[in-house]
């Protein structure tokens, strides 16, 4: 409870400071919209903002789903095959060095304005923390447990299914929480490169048309989206691995 109050207090301080800076004469209204103007924009343009937010949300959700699927397949394959892990790890890291801003327009050129390029970019950013975290989880399973499974005559696949995967679920969720927060940025990049709709596109358009309050309203919505996705991943973790909390009491 105190944590919630503290967060609220920090938020109030931040908004107050924002309002204060925005009210200064030396600050151009076109550069910085005040919280009050942003709220007004949220209210006045709500249906426009909401329609575009839904588009972005679908891109983010589908992109995340793809990253989880790809991340789990990559992590399990790399866990089962040592040569594959050694060979693929550098490429995995290299994939994160790809400048998305440069890649996005190329993808749009190749796949047009549809949802495809957005999903590709979200997935490209998000599969990485999921793969790396899950792989760490799979590799950190108690060696004694693996010995026990071997002595019980368990096949490799059964050990993976009954011991290694459940044991690394908390790691998978850690990766998912990181992915959830950066997924929104991926969708915005995708939309900037070329899109008919979406919050990212709306923000870009608003910027060009000097509708600063609408830009800020869009940013607020994108931020809320990332926070909500993070909270959702945390909740899913609690529901999926209740034992993780029992085992490690605070």
């Amino acid at each position, binding site marked *: 409870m105190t944590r919630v109050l503290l967060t609220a207090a920090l938020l109030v301080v931040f908004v107050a400071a924002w309002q204060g800076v925005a009210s200064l004469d030396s600050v151009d209204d076109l550069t910085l919209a005040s919280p009050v103007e942003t709220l007004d924009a949220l209210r006045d343009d709500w249906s426009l903002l909401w329609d575009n937010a839904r588009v972005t949300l679908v891109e983010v959700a589908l992109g995340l789903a793809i990253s989880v699927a790809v991340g789990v397949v990559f992590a399990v394959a790399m866990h089962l095959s040592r040569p594959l892990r050694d060979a693929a790890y550098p490429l995995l890291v290299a994939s994160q060095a790809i400048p998305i801003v440069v890649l996005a327009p190329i993808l749009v050129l190749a796949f047009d304005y549809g949802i495809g390029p957005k999903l590709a970019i979200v997935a490209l950013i998000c599969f990485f923390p999921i793969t790396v975290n899950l792989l760490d989880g799979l590799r950190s399973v108690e060696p004694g*447990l693996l010995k*026990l499974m071997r*002595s019980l005559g368990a096949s490799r696949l059964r050990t993976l299914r009954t011991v290694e995967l459940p044991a690394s679920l908390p790691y998978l969720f850690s990766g998912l929480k990181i992915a959830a927060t950066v997924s929104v940025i991926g969708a915005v990049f995708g939309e900037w490169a070329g899109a008919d709709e979406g919050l990212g596109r709306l923000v870009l358009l608003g910027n060009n048309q000097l509708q600063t309050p609408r830009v800020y309203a869009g940013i607020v919505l994108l931020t809320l989206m990332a926070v909500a996705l993070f909270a959702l991943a945390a909740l899913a973790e609690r529901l999926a691995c209740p034992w993780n909390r029992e085992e490690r009491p605070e």
Partner: protein
Amino acid sequence: MSTKVEAPVPEPLSLERNGVELTGVSRSFGAITALEGLDLRVRPGEVMAVVGPSGCGKSTLLEIVAGLQEPDAGSARAGAGPSASSAATRRAACAYMPQRDLLLPWRDALGNAALALECQGVARAEARRRAEPLFERFGLADFERSRPAELSGGMRQRVAFLRTLLPGRPVLLLDEPFGALDAITRGSMQEWLAGALLAEPRTVLLVTHDVEEAVFLADRVAIMSARPGRIVATLHVPLPRPRRLTDARLVELRAAALEALA
């Protein structure tokens, strides 16, 4: 603990020729020689305890018998038949119980006990069904649905025992099974195990650093030297069962074992 323990397997075990035999076993890890020229024989149906100082290679010895490791030199046999020296046959003949209970925290007690059967290809529901009637005999009634985190140390250990015994393998390998328990729980668990083995004899190789536990439970006690480990003496414990820890002859044997260790 007066819990009566009956055979967890419906069909009687054949102990015939299901012994353990190590001949000239050596095992090194890098520059460290864990075992060197170790000979050990456990007769079918016999309870053999191995005691030795910490780090003398007791666990390595047990893992070799269990078929989890191969010796660098010498031979290891467990179970019956001409193929008893292959690691796969040793794994199939031995029920191995590691030092810690290693229960899966996301499974309830019943699911943990059933794990061993599932690994043999029994369907999960069927494995749970077969494990359930044994909970009462193991003093675990009403805790079938409890997660390991909700169980006491002694109960967790009994679930681990149940998991170990369920597949009905003839050779039981115990690696300091009560080392992690407090003294009072340890005493009652030792009595419980003695009763369980009396009700259903198995070939047992018990590794421990507790001399008292060794003479209380075993037919013979092998004394192991510090690294590199080898058997330096073997004591017979010709006492009838059930035994009492306060029995004067047991106390005497304990002193003899401690002397051999020194």
